Structures are given as structure tokens and as C-alpha cells.
């Protein structure tokens, strides 16, 4: 794909982004086009209302949380590198390690199993204290099950879910407990999206 190298010129730090996230040039170009599409005011960064303009997200029960995940804590805008880094979590897991040329200093790739799980964990853990408390779990459950169960039933479900996963009895789920409870789940399949070229 010889021509793509010219189109990545518009994208700042394209090579580093490709290296870091593992996206190919074609992917990156397409994502950049999407970024520009979402960025209605042409500011070079996305704000909350840009995300909310995506109509289907409003119907998604956890749409707000997903949008929130794009924004680093304390920041109100999302620039292109952050946009791509979050999306990189959803790339299918690389089966060939050589692609990233791993050496000791290489950080965990964004689409490894641990990184994916960390992303999922942070959806629950809004206050970033490293633990999912009962309240936080309840909030997520409430969002997903709102129409169909009563508040008491929600409480019971949250209670039981915590009991199942909470191994050190601190009434909250830490990241390791979260990982352990999902060890049988095929995360590579379940948390991957095909990125079109």
C-alpha cells in the first residue's frame, strides 16, 4: 500500500502511533477520517457533545461510561492519539509477537488480554481507586437492567456478584479478583472489533 504513506502525513506522530497501538497505516487513516468527521467544529480534538452526537450511543445502556473512558481523568477533550489508544484496546489480540519487537522495555500492548480487562475494569471503577465497590457495581447493573428488575433485586444481584468474585473479603472487587473471575472467558473473542481498512 504505497499510497497510504502519503496520507498518513497529515496525521501527527503517525509512525509512533502505529508502533504503539499496532494499527496499520490504512487503519490509522480511516480512524483519522472518522475523528475529523466527529470533530464538528474542526478543533482538532473531541469534546463531550461531539461524542453525544453519535445517535446510537444514546440508546446504549452504558454509552455514557464508554464515552467517559475516552477522556483521561481531569481532561475535557480527546485528541487523536488518545482516541486511537483507546480504540487500540479493541484490536484482535496479536498472535505473532514479533510484530511489536518485544524487548524488556516494551510496555504491554494495548490489545493484550490484561489491557482489555483493565479497560473493562475501569468502566466499573469510576473513582479509579483500583477497586469496584458494591455501589459502583450497582450503578452498572442499574444502567443495564433498569427496566426489568426492582431495586431490591438489583441489590441482591450485586451482593451475590460481589460474593462470587471477592476473594479477600473486603467487600470490593480488585483488578486481580476481576481477572480471576473471568479467567475462563474468551476475552480475545469477546472484546474485539474488526477494524475496517
Amino acid at each position, binding site marked *: 500500500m504505497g499510497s497510504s504513506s502519503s496520507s498518513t502525513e497529515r496525521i501527527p506522530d503517525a509512525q509512533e502511533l502505529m508502533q504503539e497501538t499496532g494499527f496499520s497505516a490504512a487503519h490509522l487513516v480511516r*480512524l483519522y477520517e*472518522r475523528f475529523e*468527521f*466527529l470533530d464538528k467544529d474542526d478543533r482538532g480534538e473531541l469534546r463531550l457533545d461531539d*461524542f453525544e452526537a*453519535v445517535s*446510537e*450511543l444514546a440508546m*446504549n*445502556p*452504558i*454509552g455514557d461510561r*464508554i464515552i467517559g473512558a*475516552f477522556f483521561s481523568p481531569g481532561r475535557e477533550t480527546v485528541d487523536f492519539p488518545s482516541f486511537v489508544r483507546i*480504540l487500540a484496546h*479493541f484490536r*484482535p*489480540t496479536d*498472535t505473532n509477537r514479533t510484530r511489536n519487537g518485544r524487548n524488556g522495555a516494551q510496555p504491554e500492548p494495548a490489545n493484550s488480554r490484561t489491557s482489555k480487562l483493565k479497560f*473493562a475494569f475501569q*468502566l466499573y471503577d469510576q473513582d479509579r481507586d483500583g477497586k469496584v465497590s458494591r455501589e459502583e*457495581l450497582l450503578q*452498572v*447493573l442499574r444502567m*443495564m*437492567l433498569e427496566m*426489568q*428488575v*426492582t431495586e*431490591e*433485586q438489583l*441489590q*441482591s*444481584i450485586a*451482593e*451475590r*456478584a460481589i*460474593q*462470587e*468474585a471477592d*476473594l479477600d*473479603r473486603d467487600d470490593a*472487587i480488585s483488578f486481580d479478583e*476481576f481477572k480471576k*473471575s*473471568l479467567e*475462563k*472467558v*474468551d476475552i*480475545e*473473542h*469477546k*472484546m*474485539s*472489533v*474488526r*477494524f*475496517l481498512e
Partner: protein
Amino acid sequence: MRGCGFVHLLGWVLLIGFVLSVNCEAGHESNHSEHEHGSGLSGIPIVTFKWHHVETPYLVALFVLVSFLAKLVIEANHHVTNIIPESALLICFGFILGGIIWGADKAQTFTLTPTVFFFYLLPQVILDAGYSMPNKLFFSNMGAILVYAVIGTCWNAASLGLSLWGCHMGGAMGDLDIGLLQYLLFGSLIAAVDPVAVIAVFEQVHVNEVLFIMVFGESLLNDGVTVVLFNVFDAFVSLGGAKINAVEIIKGIISFFVVAFGGSLVGFVFGLLISLLTRCTKNIQIIEPGFVFVLGYLAYLTAEMLSLSAILSIVFCGMCCQKYINSNMDENSVNTVRYAMKVFANGSETIIFVFLGISAIDKTLWVWNTGFILLTLLFVIVYRFIGVFFLTWILNKFRLVPLEVIDQVIMSYGGLRGAVAYGLAMMLDENKIKEKNLMVCTTLIVVYFTVIIQGITMKPLVTWLKVRRAAVSELTLIEKVQNKVFDHMLVAIEDISGQIGHNYMRDKWNYFEEKWMSRVLMKPSARKNRDRLFKVFHQLNLKDAMSYVAEGEHQGSLEFVRNKNAFIDFKKKNIDDDYYEVMPDIMADMSDDHSEMSSDRRDPVPSVSLEMHEQNMKAVRESEDINTHHLLQQHLYRGRKQHRHRYSRSHFDVNKDEGEVQEVFQRTMRSRLESFKSAKMGVAPPKTLSKHPKKEQQQKVRGSQSSSNYLFTKHHKQPETC
């Protein structure tokens, strides 16, 4: 077990006795009737022997009984069935039975005719396959499955037919009267992977779900192709070579689409019909299950009548209606449908394999042509491997998670041929095809090779290649919640990154399905309770409550339920047999994809037991918290793990790993008991928790057999949407 040897002996004696007696009676009946008539009617006969009267149904019933007894004998010893799959043993038994019948009658009176097979034995197996199909998994991999089913089968048929013809021309087979068209016809009937054989063999080896659904889905869907190819080539053979021109070939291709889509459509319509019906059958709950079977069978026959693909029809009927009938029908009806389906399917499978064995023992059948047979066998295997590897190479370019090479090997090796091929071979017209017997023999040998040899070697091969196996895991709420979160997450990401992907489509389908289809096909009350997450939670609570009550009753005291201060002591107990009557199937029968369970496997591991100490003094002194802390002794609890994502006809494997940590158990039981107790005492009780223990107690009091009660008071399960 001491009983085992006795069972074996009894079984064999019974079998041989029955068969011989039947033959004797059949032989003697003419004598008897003559004797009766010869003597004239000199008085009122008090008792007469009317064999003619009952001959046909008697023989059928006897044959079914003998097949089931064979299964009993075979399953008595697990050491053997671990190595040799049951299907292979049943075929061997069929050989023996055929030999006995041949010896007694000097003619094979019991062969598998196509009519019996296609109309009476096959439909229930396929209906069960469709009803228990994990829809979500199937449709996620639908593209790949279709590629294998359609293109793979066509490749198998064409390559086999042409290669055999090439070898024939080259003189490897000696003098045979078979033309190119007949070779292609033979290729088409032997090309198809057989669902019955696949289930029978793969049931033993629990490969990962994607691999399984590929092979299984292919075996079901390729019927569309097989029917078309067989009919087309059959017509071509009748027409003769001269009349084949482009028009006919195009007609053939069109007929494929008509047959495949028509069959599916018929099945879909019948599925909708069943769903609609179950919506209104509140007042006749007792025969509700009957509708499912009758309409399923009608779907099969209707498609057959319209010369469409009957297997596709009944598969889609089952797949379409599973969700709705499980919601609409009463719990008991759902359980009835599920168990009856298994009984019929399992029974049919047994009979089919026994028949396959018997049919071989027929002197009039056997024609041996070394070249033909060996070459067929070779080509069947080789072309299967080539086909699968080539198609997978292409598919992996498009798949999100590519199929590994090892999985491809198993997929190729798992391309088993079975009774469908034999049935089709028997349907050949011997006037048009002179060498029909040779073809039938070859088919039989191929079937035996794949079922017996490949069946025996499948498990060692899977172990040796370290194929990824199905994950055996306990159903947890966290996983269920997380799966839901993943689903929503992926849709959101697809929306944000602006692409219409797999998840987007699925989401849209779910939305359409929820809004329109469920409204029509589901009862309003069922629609409200649809959420599966809640159902899982409900099931798990039910399971806990039932185990507590069961335990309490076994110990003779339900003190802990009635008295909040009762001291409860959890201790390991040795398991009696009758205890197991009480606790066999309290498993939550829920999963993303259907998991099947059966009550014929006993958990060999001791389970928890509660010992009720009526030490009120102690209880009064201590606070409730400390009570529960004293609960659990240092004993190991090995729970029964549920097998998810696995299509199983009959087996429910107990997880044998030692992994259940006692500490976890103690904690879990303690906290469960706390929440259970708090519910009972009215401290913010979730409605479900308090409701069901009472219900269980009442039903126990009614005095009917405990095990059946527990079997039939499980809440029905909710299968996955497409």
C-alpha cells in the same frame, strides 16, 4: 461395582434369548395356526396364541428393546467407553446381532431401509440438534459454516467422483459398469459429513466451542447441498449423458438455492407456528409438549413433500422456536420437551448404529472390489483434508480470530460419514445403477472406518495435539454481567469508530426481535421476565435454597429455617445413595449456549451437609455473626461444575479437579446463609429468595418422590437470542 458383571451377563443372556425366541416363534407360528385350524373348533378356546396378530409391532418393539439393552450393557463399564466410543460398540453389537439373525433365518430380515431411516429415525435426532443449538455461537460463525457446508461438500463430491472415474479409466478397478455420471452420483452421496456420527464422536471429546460448532454446523447445513447434488445427478443418470447441456446445469444450480432456502423457510414458518401456538396453550399445559414434536415432524415431512431439504427445515424449526417456547411454556412443559427430545434422539441414534451393524451381515449384499473400496477410502480422507485447509486459509483472511492449524486438523479428521450416506446409497435405483451393491458396500466400509477407527483415535489425537478444550466453568453472575457489558461495549465502539460491524448487526437484530417478534410470539407475562441476567441470578438462588432445604431435611431438622438462633454446623458427610436421590439435579440449567444435563450421572464426590444442632443456649449467648463464623469445618467441597457451550446428547461430566478451595467454600456458604437467613427474617427480602424455599417445602410434604420433584421444579432456562 459388583453389580456390573451381573448386568453384563444378564444383558447378553436376555439379548440372545430374545432374538432366538423371536425367530423360533416366527418359525413356529405357521405350525401353530395350522394346528389350531386343523383341529376345528371343537370348543371355546380359553387361550390362543395369536402371533400373526401382533407380529409387526412386536418385532419392532422387541428390536427397540434389544437396542436399548445393548446400550445398557455398553454403558455399564466406563473404562471401555472412554477408549472406544459408544457408537463403535453399538455397531459391533449390530454385527453380532446380525450374525445371530442370519444364523437363525438364513436371510437378513432386519435391514435399515431408507424409509424407516429417513422417516422414523432421523427426524428426532435433527430436531434435538436444532432445539439445543447454541444460536448465538452458530450465527456468529455462520459465514464460515456455510462456506464449509456448501463449497466444501461440492468440492468433496466433485473431486471424489472425478478421481474415482480417473482411476477407473486408468484401469485400477478392473471391470466395472460405472460411467462418469454415476461416479459423480456416488461422490455426492458419500461427500456429506454426517450429523449423527459427528455428535456421537465429538460428544466424547470436549473440544472448544468454535471448533465444535464448525463441524457440527457444517454437518447439518450440508444436507441442502447433498440433497440437491444427489437429485441432480440422479436425474442426470436417468436422462443419460446426451441430454445434459448448459440449461440443465443452470437448473441444477437454481435448484440448489431453491432447495436450501425453501427448506429453511419452511422450517422457519413452522418454528413461528409452534411459538404462536405455545402462546395460547395455557389451558392445555399437559399436552403442550406434544405440539413441539408434532409440528417439528410436520416441518420435516412438508419439506420432504416439496422436495426441499428436510434436514434444513427441521433444524431451522428447532432453532427458531427454542427461545419462544422456552419462555411461553410452563416450566414442566419445557422440561418435558427437553427430556423427551433427548430420549427420542438418543434412542434413535442407538437404533441407527445397531442397524448399521446389522445391515452388514448380509451375504447378498457383498461385492468386493479392492480398488474401488480402498481408493474411495483414501480419497475421502485426503480430499477432506485438502478441502478444509484450503477453505480455512481463505476464511482466515476475513475472520476476526483466525482458526488455528490444530483446529483445522481436527476439523478435517472429524469429517465423519454416517447413516445418511448409507440411506442415500440404499435409495439408488439398481436398474439404472448396475453396481449398486458395490456402492452400498463401499459406503458401509467408509462409515465403519470413520465411526470406528476415527472415533477411537479422535480422543487420543485431540489430547496429543493439545487442542483447546471447552471451558468447564461454573456459572457465575460476574461472567454473565460482564458478557452483557462486553456486548454493549462492542456496539458502542463500533458506533464511535463509525463502522457497521458484526456487533452492530447483532444489536439491530436484537432490537428488531425485541420490538416486533417477541411481541407477537411471546406471552406478555413472559416478555416482562425476559432478562437473562436476572434469570441466572434467580436460578443460582434457587439452587442454594434447595440445597439448604434438602440438607436440612436429610438431617431431620429444618431448625435453621424456623429458628433464627439455631446453630448450624457444616460438616462433611459420607454420601448415601438415597441422599443422592434428593440432590441430583439442582443445577442451574442456564448458559449462554445450551448446556445439557442428565440425571444418570451421580456425583461421586461428597457434598456439603448441614448438621443442625439445637443448641439454643449457645445460640442465644452468641450473636448471629459468630454463629455463622463457626459454621464451616475444614472440609473440602467439590461442587458439580456445569458444562457450558457444549452440545451433549446424554452426558454431564463432573468436574474432577480438586480445585474447590475449602476457604472459598466456607466463605461462600457462610455469606449465602447470611443472605438467606436475612431474607427469611424479613430483612429487606428479595422476593424470589423467600418465595421458593417455602414452595420446595410444600412440595416435599406432598410426598411424591423427591428426585422427580427437584427435577421438575427447576425454572426454565432462557436460551440466547440469535
